[in-house]
């Protein structure tokens, strides 16, 4: 098992399959939040479902809307399991705080290079320091089909 230690974290301990890319994260800029997929064409995860996945990405990007949107996504259940970032911005922290969402950030190495896409991981914000544990490495699954469109 590989253990990667973070500088900061919040939320509950969760397990899930990692969705990894050397790219940023913004709920407004990057996501089709209705269908639960990355929708910005230039994003490295464009077309892939984020629902229930542990997102392992480079940096928080974009504007302030994510602070509300994580709460809105959680209310509808069309939500990642957790967010793991090399670098956060305040908006992502504020959004995670409101939504009671699991997030850790700040690593000694580039986390998007350290975790294989598709690996089963455990995010533990409550350990001291917060940890990302790679439990098993798996062959990346094929892209998930889009979810059926749902109204807000």
């Amino acid at each position, binding site marked *: 098992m590989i253990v990667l230690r973070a500088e*900061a*974290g*919040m939320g509950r301990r969760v397990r899930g399959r990692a969705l990894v890319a050397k790219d*940023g994260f913004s709920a*407004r*800029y*990057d*996501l*089709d939040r*209705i269908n639960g997929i990355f*929708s*910005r*064409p*230039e*994003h490295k995860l464009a077309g892939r479902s984020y629902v229930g996945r542990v997102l392992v990405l480079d*940096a*928080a*990007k*974009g*504007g*302030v*809307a*994510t*602070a*509300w*949107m994580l*709460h*809105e996504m*959680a*209310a*509808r259940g069309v939500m990642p399991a957790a967010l793991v970032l090399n*670098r*956060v*911005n*305040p*908006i992502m*922290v*504020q*959004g995670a*705080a*409101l939504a009671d969402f699991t997030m850790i950030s700040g690593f000694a190495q580039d986390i998007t290079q350290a975790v294989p896409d598709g690996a089963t991981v455990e995010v533990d914000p409550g350990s001291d320091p917060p940890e990302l544990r790679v439990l098993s490495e798996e062959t990346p699954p094929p892209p998930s089909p889009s979810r059926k469109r749902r109204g*807000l």
Partner: protein
Amino acid sequence: MHLTAEEQSWLAGDAGPARQWAIEHQMRVGRYLGAIDLVPVSQAHIMADTESLGPAGVDWLERLAALPPDQRRARIPTITDPRGTDFAAAARLKQQDWMVSLERRTVAAFESMGILMTDTCINYQTIMPAIRNEHMAYGDTGVVIYSNSVLGARSNFEGGPSALAAGLTGRTPRYGYHLDQHRNATLLIRVADTPHELHDWGALGALVGQLAGDYWQVPALIGIDRVPTSDELKHFGAALASFGSVALFHMIGITPEAPRLQDVADPAMPERATFGTDVLAAFQARYTSNIDTVDVVVFAAPQLSLLELQTLSRMLDGRRARTPLLVVTSPQVKPDADRMGITARIEASGGLVLSGMCFYQSYARELAEANGWQALATNSAKLVNILGGYGYRPVLLSMQHCVDVACSGRIAR
């Protein structure tokens, strides 16, 4: 985190559940980001369009708004970012009743909390600009970066919940750009050719933002050979914040904290990049290839100043838009534009002047589906960055070129 006796009483619930939630939220955020205490702020500015809030967020706001007046009222002047609609134009935009209903509920909740519904992202041009070293809790990245950089204010990006918390407590966690040690430049960029048009300034901001890459980077720019206007810095900052999540920049010899390079950086700091006309043109070309016609032309993000509206009206005089032409300004500017005949001139040419909303904050995906819009022309680099994810094919052009496209329906090459 260190709390004063008053803050500890709020944490204990002595001032009711709204202020208790607010201080708990601020402590969670502050601990994550290394704050040791809270800093008093003069104003809060809340981004809360209902596409972002969703029904769950509106319900949550209404629970706060249902508390007794002394428990729900903001303690400091608290204002709002653009709404998700212009109520007077919602039907014309083909926005659905449920969207308008959510917006009305949100307005009612905020008003009961004593929040001023300014509905603007250009409050630094229209409401009450910050002064140097004034601590603020501003939402809207464009407001934060302009206020920090051009005015010398001190604010982090405060998302809607955190700005609301700041309104309720009059404080915000002291981290990031409230502190001197984060305000020095971290990368140096040379500008070889000072931009001319607003979309050029936006392109420059986008390129610097892409290079900077994250919130904790502070670009310093050298080589700009004249003092930019407020609208030029508005477009530059909005794009820089949008593409890079950057909250502070310095322009050496122009912005207040950087009269000289050595005031914000080691003078030996190496230049990371040089941006000139060719690079800006290459950036703009990314957004024009393979698009010959557009479905809608939008001037927004940020909302237009009175001077931008006047310029646009002159470009439209005697012409007729063949494609939908949306022009978005603030509720403070719109009455002046009405009174001075600017709105009438734009609308006589087929434009629609909207107030108090912003295009990307107004259910942009649903607007596209309802109106059959996909190819969109704008002079806002920020807008082209956002709208790709909403299914649009955005094109970045000058204001004049956008007008030409609106009137001809085609992109001249």
